């Protein structure tokens, strides 16, 4: 039951409580969405899960282990991958390299083995080839073949979003945090993304935490939804429950007078 859970999470910035007493449970292999208006603390929760911020209080437990206090790279090694709201790609590297970087924790090549990449038979080359095969799989899956060797900086926004998803997938995560993956995409791309997220969940055996503003998408794919405002939980439940919840409507549309 307790596959991934967050308990009493609190953080404040300069006296302002950004996240206050947030707690939720995520079941394995489900899609768990977090919704809320801008500035309600959604991304802050993600930042705490991936270790960029250290919560003032609370626990983040994954597979029986508390993630609080670990550095981001350690957390990544535990199997948590994420994307960013404002795209944090390695813009002066190719799509291929970006995805290969996602393979970082699965590779071993160090400075010396790397420097001695003498021919196809060397250890570094064998590892490279093995991981490239996996990355090619992701490229096929996300339909990125056409931009495989392009520099990320030269790609359109939607493609960059996809590359970021691809990079997170390359980590082979157990928990995947997607921070507004559809922002900036057009309707068609959004539909594709919808399908991909479903596919990812089905094929990659991964639990997805999703922040999203597009209600159609949320309602379509989420298993459970967590609504937050002003850093505090409004409610948590199944999509249809959330949809009709007055507090949520209020938070999104403002107070009816």
């Amino acid at each position: 039951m307790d596959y991934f859970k967050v308990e009493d999470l609190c953080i404040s910035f300069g006296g302002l409580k950004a996240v206050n007493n947030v707690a939720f449970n995520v079941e394995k292999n489900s899609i768990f969405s977090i919704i809320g208006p801008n500035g309600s603390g959604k991304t802050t929760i993600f930042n705490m899960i991936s270790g960029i911020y250290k919560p003032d209080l609370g626990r983040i437990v994954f597979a029986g282990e508390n993630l609080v206090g670990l550095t981001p790279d350690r957390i990544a090694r535990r199997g948590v991958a994420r994307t960013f709201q404002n795209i944090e790609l390695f813009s002066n590297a190719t799509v291929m390299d970006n995805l290969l970087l996602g393979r970082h924790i699965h590779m071993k090549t160090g400075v010396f083995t790397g420097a001695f990449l003498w021919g196809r038979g060397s250890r570094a080359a064998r590892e490279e080839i093995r991981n490239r095969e996996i990355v090619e799989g992701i490229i096929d899956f996300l339909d990125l073949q056409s931009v495989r060797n392009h520099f990320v900086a030269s790609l359109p926004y939607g493609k960059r979003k996809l590359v970021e998803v691809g990079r997170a997938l390359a980590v082979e995560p157990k928990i995947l945090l997607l921070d507004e993956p559809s922002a900036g995409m057009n309707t068609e791309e959004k539909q594709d993304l919808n399908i991909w997220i479903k596919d990812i969940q089905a094929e990659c055996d991964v639990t997805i935490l999703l922040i999203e503003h597009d209600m159609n998408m949320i309602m379509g794919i989420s298993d459970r939804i967590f609504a937050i405002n002003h850093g505090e939980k409004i409610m948590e439940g199944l999509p249809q429950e959330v949809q009709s919840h007055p507090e949520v409507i209020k938070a999104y549309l403002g107070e009816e007078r």
Partner: protein
Amino acid sequence: MMFRKKMLVSLFAALAVLTVANITQAAQPAGFDDNEIRIGQWGPQTGPAAPWGSVARGSKLLFDIVNEEGGIHGRKIKYFIRDDMYNPAQTVAVVKELVERQGIFAFVGGVGSAPGMAVKDYLAANKIIWVSPSAADKEFTQPLNPYLFAVYPLYKDEASILAKYIVEKLKTKKIGILYQNDAYGKDGLEGAKERLATYKMSLVAEIPVEPTEKDFASQILRLKNSGAEAVLMYVSPTAAVITLKTAASVGFKPQWVSANTLSDYPLMFKITGGLWEGVITGAFGETPDSKSPLMVKYRDAAKRLTPQERWGTFYYAGILFADPIVEALKKVGRNLSTEALLKALNSIKDYQTIGPRITWTPKQHQGTDSVMIQKCGPGASYIMLQDWTTNDLATWKK
């Protein structure tokens, strides 16, 4: 796999060529022909040591005079100056460029201890004569380097002579030293200590300064607190200016004594704003206003040929350094060769132009240990305190 093989092949090829290269050695262009003798010099024309660059330009004046007078036995001197920025890597580069591309018969002058050390073995290995390095380093002549002839008195000898003067003539008991933390300063320190030991005295303060430093307040206060009545300065001109200005501002007024490096009174007087008056220095060239015929000749030539140059100590030191080789070349005659010139240089005895008396023997290439002692008078005038003096403690003579 293919690549590894290729690497192996090229490695072997390289090793093979490495051994071949042992045998092949491109011939160097000769240093002279029937019409000209090619002489080179390096010197810092740019960078922090650039003020000493005038040495190399001073030598040029002498060669211009010689060429004007018709050259040496029908040969003109072709003179090359190269800027090395006082950086040994650059010195090696410019010397190799001159030797291997232009063909150089001999080098004269060459400012700096480290630059000289970097090229001295190369020059000797290529049998290129080097006369009068513009630096005093005992490693230039000890052990004997058959191709290197030194004029510059060792800093250690000079310090010893100056210390003797301070103790015996100035009757000062408390002597301090402010020295630059390098070969120049440390040799000075050593010489002073050695001399004082003969009087059973020791220095009241030994304060090092780093070559690039610009703020000496704490060092001067140390000297002041030590109660030194005379202070030996083995520092660069800029450092000396800062020293004097700082000392004036904290009310410290000892007798300043310094090496010949600072014997350019008009310059020092000007850049210290007159504080230089009263400073005693060693000197190894005649005063710039000297009435001796040679000085007059050189001074007039400088006014005519290089009006843009200041007639300063470093500038005519360049002439002084080049004098012996011209003399030796004249002695050799028309039948020029390295061996002949070596022989002529080795037989130079008590040769004096505008500097100290120089004697070279086949066994001793440190030409002199003589310095004069002078004092800066009002308006940067030169006051002679003591004529050419040798160091009776010099160990290299024995």
